């Protein structure tokens, strides 16, 4: 397949998925509390009928459903996600623009740790197949991906923050430090640009435990797939040919087998990223990390519907975008797609 056509197809598919998400949240927003205004104003809609009427007019909530849907999508495209009762009626979009960067910080570090850990352990596990090291690694990743993220996060918190007191117990940075001025919106990047080293170090210190917790539940997906595809590849004909040509075992493994096995890793990475992003909800809550996941948990407890629906949409957008990146990466690594 032509790589551009392939990417275009994935792009269109991503848009289709987003349309589906928005349609689902639209349907949900109409079913909340028997009153559509609730989805924009929360439960307080019933306390202030005048305000509710104003909103119904503003958002075309009393028009026929197709018209409502049109204005719903239009509102979303304008970044209008309603107002969040649990945040003193701050616009949901504003809350998300503050919290999302923190979630991305955790997700980024968790992703890096996950990939490194996943590949190293996958390679070791395949090289030492059926030996004690392989058994240990398999037990480790099985335990990891079978554990709920909140369980792993709790264990790490108890052991490393409370028992050994090695790392902070919560938050995203030392609150006595001055945060960097907003440049990109992602605090750690801004701190690095500005040269605000104390803040950056403190942020790193705070992000380590949550991102390790998250990586521990996700790396197993990668290790498992890499191990089994390495084992498959090592028994294939072209590896036998490479050996027969007299290549030494190391270049057979790293140049031929690993490169090929990585294709399946890229395929599975979208699954891993989805787990990783949804996992932030739990990990942030346990570590008191002020990201979107923690906001979601607070919104859930407060029945802050605009917040819940807004976060749902943004989580879906983030997941669709990361999956799209994985798809494009796939087109780059897989010669069957790349060469058409």
């Amino acid at each position, binding site marked *: 397949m032509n790589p551009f056509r392939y990417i275009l197809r994935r792009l269109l598919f991503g848009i289709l998925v987003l349309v*589906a998400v928005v349609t*689902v949240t639209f349907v*949900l927003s109409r079913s909340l509390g028997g009153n559509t205004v609730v989805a924009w104003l929360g439960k307080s809609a019933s306390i202030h009928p005048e305000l509710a009427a104003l909103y119904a007019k503003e958002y075309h909530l009393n028009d026929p459903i197709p018209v409502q849907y049109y204005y719903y999508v239009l509102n979303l495209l304008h970044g209008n996600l309603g107002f969040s009762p649990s945040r003193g009626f701050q616009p949901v979009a504003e809350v998300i623009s503050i919290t999302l960067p923190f979630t991305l910080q955790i997700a980024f570090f968790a992703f890096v740790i996950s990939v490194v850990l996943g590949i190293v352990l996958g390679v070791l596990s395949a090289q030492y197949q059926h030996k004690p090291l392989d058994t240990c690694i398999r037990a480790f990743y099985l335990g990891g991906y*079978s554990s*709920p993220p909140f*369980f792993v996060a709790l264990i790490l918190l108890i052991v490393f923050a*409370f028992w050994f007191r090695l790392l902070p117990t919560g938050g995203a940075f030392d609150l006595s430090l001055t945060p960097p001025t907003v440049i990109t919106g992602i605090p750690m990047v801004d701190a690095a640009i500005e040269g605000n080293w104390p803040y950056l170090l403190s942020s790193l210190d705070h992000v380590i435990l949550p991102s390790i917790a998250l990586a521990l539940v996700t790396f197993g997906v990668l290790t498992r797939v890499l191990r089994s595809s390495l084992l498959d590849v090592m028994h294939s004909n072209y590896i036998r040919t490479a050996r027969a040509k007299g290549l030494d075992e190391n270049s057979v493994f790293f140049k031929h087998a690993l490169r090929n096995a990585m294709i399946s890793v890229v395929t599975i990475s979208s699954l891993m990223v989805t787990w990783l992003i949804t996992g932030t909800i739990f990990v942030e809550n346990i570590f008191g990390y002020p990201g979107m996941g923690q906001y979601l948990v607070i919104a*859930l407890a407060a029945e802050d519907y605009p917040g819940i629906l807004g*976060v749902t949409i943004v989580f879906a957008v983030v997941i669709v975008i990361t999956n799209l990146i994985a798809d494009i990466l796939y087109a780059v690594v897989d010669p069957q797609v790349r060469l058409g």
Partner: protein
Amino acid sequence: MFRRSKEALIGGIIALGILLMAAVVTVAGILGVRITPYDPIQQDVGPPLAPPSLLHLMGTDNLGRDLLSRIIVATPNDVAVSLAVVGVALAVGAVIGSVAAFQGGLLDEALMRFTDVVFALPALVLAMAIGVTLGPGVTNMMIALMIIWWPPYTRLARGEALRVAHQNYIEAARLSGMGTARILFKHVFRSILVTLLVYATLDIGTVILVYSGLSYLGLSVKPPQPDWGEMVSSYQDYLIVAPWLPVIPGFIIALGVIGFSLLGDGIRDALEAR
């Protein structure tokens, strides 16, 4: 299978243990017999926040309730949700998948693209949003998960049905004048069932994992009713004074997931070897 793989045996024991426990608790509940060491909801059956001891094997919580009793009575929730969600997904997937495979053409294309889109939706986040709309409760979470859980089963069923469709006995059935619906019911479902069941066994663990997440977020039982995920979130405030309180329920969830994964892997390997 168990003779060949120690892992599958361990998984089988854990899975069977959990299923049995759920069955016993449910039957005892119907008969009105208490099988737990203490009443799981009654407060002050022991001193609050007591560490594990012979009297309270898993300790007591902040209100002096027995943790072991609470964990035991919560078993049917996770088991019921996972079996129901996986069962419905399997049935829906088998029907849509094999109809798509046998009808082919535009219907196949439409059904499978729809499946792809639902498959790409973030499961936990969407289940949560649907769950919020339906309102908290075990049954509502079950429904929320059922709505989004079927796509992988559909894909699997379609692939298997396509493989079956070209075999001689299906051809023979068609030539003998059997209609598509009857062929599907009499032959196709039976032959794709094994593959789907193996996948379902592996999948039970995933449902438990996602359900425990929803429960942790407070979308499942209402207090004082216990649930594994809910226990972790309500006890996490005591993690310094009584770390066993959130850790034990979390460990039980992980154990259940490990059990079903090992069992599913074992069954799959055994079938592939044959």
